């Protein structure tokens, strides 16, 4: 037996067609649709980070809005206090701010598991939400803070270029490249010895400790990486949205990140990516068609749990496997 599986080759073969489609899609669809896709890719980055905790470490966080929001507010503060509009500075600031908060909150949370972990993450994220809500002279309160169109790689957005065109073209490709890098890095992380250690913690914490995994430390690193991914997503989201408000720090947004991941399927690597993109379309079209859009999403969630507990990717994978066995 050859003990070396052809993992990277297989993954590349399935990733390349997806990357090609994502690259050429803006040439075929309307700019508005492209911005929706950009939102979807950004949510996919957040969900990938979230799933490092849920799918690979066995920890359900209800507080990832904190890191997504920190990324977004870090950008808004850079604009407000330093008048800088460089996207690269935004990324640096967003990653540092969300990483710092994730490091602190993670240090407090990873000692707990199950419901205690979930509640603690939720409570800590609500502290940030209340700060953003109450300190309006700093955060703009419910009015939020505006973020202008950023310069990308040192090239400022020409004033004559319409914002929608900028977002649907140059900004989309900027997001796409970061998404591809982030997804590739996450793929390597979950297939690394570190990723295997996290999966061991998920499967059996005590046994993991007794093969030498330092459980708290590894959970904390996973939490940190997960928070940075959510922060990166928040940083990319805010120029697209043009505004950040305390809503993005509220626990209900953490619930959305959980929804992305469950919708796509948390037991597969692709699940959170699919979930982030599909959820965004689902919510946008539900909001556009009915005032009862929350009910639509609620029904989808109930159906998902009852009928497709493995999510879209998990169910599709199982169907493919059955088809292969049948033929």
């Amino acid at each position, binding site marked *: *037996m050859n003990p070396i599986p052809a993992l990277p080759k297989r993954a590349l073969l399935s990733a390349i067609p997806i990357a090609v489609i994502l690259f050429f899609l803006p040439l075929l669809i309307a700019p508005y649709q492209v911005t929706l896709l950009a939102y979807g890719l950004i949510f996919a980055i957040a969900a990938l980070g979230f799933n490092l905790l849920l799918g690979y470490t066995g920890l359900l966080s209800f507080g990832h809005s904190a890191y997504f929001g920190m990324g977004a507010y870090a950008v808004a503060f850079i604009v407000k206090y330093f008048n800088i509009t460089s996207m690269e500075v935004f990324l640096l600031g967003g990653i540092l701010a969300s990483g710092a908060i994730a490091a602190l909150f993670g240090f407090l949370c990873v000692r707990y598991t199950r419901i205690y972990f979930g509640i603690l993450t939720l409570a800590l994220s609500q502290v940030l939400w209340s700060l953003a809500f109450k300190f309006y002279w700093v955060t703009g309160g419910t009015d939020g803070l505006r973020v202008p169109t950023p310069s990308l790689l040192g090239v400022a957005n020409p004033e004559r270029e319409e914002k929608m065109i900028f977002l649907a073209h140059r900004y989309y490709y900027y997001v796409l490249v970061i998404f591809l890098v982030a997804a590739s890095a996450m793929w390597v992380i979950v297939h*690394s010895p570190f990723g295997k250690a996290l999966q061991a913690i998920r499967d059996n914490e005590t046994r993991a400790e007794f093969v030498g995994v330092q459980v708290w430390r590894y959970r904390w690193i996973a939490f940190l990486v997960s928070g940075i991914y959510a922060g990166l997503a928040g940083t990319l989201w805010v120029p697209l949205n043009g505004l950040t408000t305390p809503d993005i720090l509220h626990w209900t947004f953490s619930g959305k990140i959980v929804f992305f991941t469950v919708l796509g399927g948390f037991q597969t690597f692709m699940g959170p990516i699919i979930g982030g993109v599909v959820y965004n379309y689902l919510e946008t079209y539900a909001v556009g068609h009915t005032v009862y859009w929350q009910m639509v999403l609620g029904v989808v969630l109930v159906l998902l749990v009852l009928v497709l507990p493995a999510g879209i990717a998990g169910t599709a994978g199982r169907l493919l496997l059955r088809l292969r066995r049948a033929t």
Partner: protein
Amino acid sequence: MVLLETKSLTKYFGDTHAVDRVHFSVAHGELLALIGSNGAGKTSLVNLISGLLRPDSGTILFQGADVTTMPVHDRIRAGIARSFQLVTVFDQLDTLDNVALAIFCREGKTRRLLSLASSDHAVRNEAFEILREFGLEAKASQPAGGLSQGERKLLDIALAYALRPKLLFLDEPTSGVSTREKAPIMNIVTSIVRSGKISAVIVEHDMDVVFRYSDRIVVMHEGAILADGTPDEIRRNEQVTTTLLGTSPSQ
């Protein structure tokens, strides 16, 4: 030559004296059986030595060094490994990945975030060799959750063995497996103890297994050591047979 020694090791759970001032030792290269009725303190003693529990008092010396308050991962690095009474393997990982993870931990490679586990040929080859030694090579690419109970027991021991311990604690290695599967498990345990020059302590209820495979037997009763000797000495010990088996040596 003494490898491990406990001095007055004590652990209370409320009013229960789980381990009561126990002086216990393991020599280099021996296969020792720890026996006693349920609640005698065998697993508690193993839990104290392996680091799962902290003692109320007493000391644990391993190769002459005090490891009483040492964290689990440092004890593993020092050379103490264990398996569990209820089989504990990583169900969603492949059988090969289970063993590879133990090797990655031993080599301090689990801190690597940005390198693929599958590209470390040396670790995977070693993991595969260990699976071969344990007769599990055909199951290498299967999730551990799909193995039979006997295979899971073997994998549990293989995980501990992959850490290259000097002292291996096996908590009921043959419990819950068929009679047919007991001998292969114990043959492998004996083989790795003899060939690897490591010491092993088995906690066991099956007296056939205990008397057939062990070099020395320590009998525990109500948290204390009741007797310590060779299988023949223990077989002839009247106190042991009446306390443990409710029969006299002649029976």
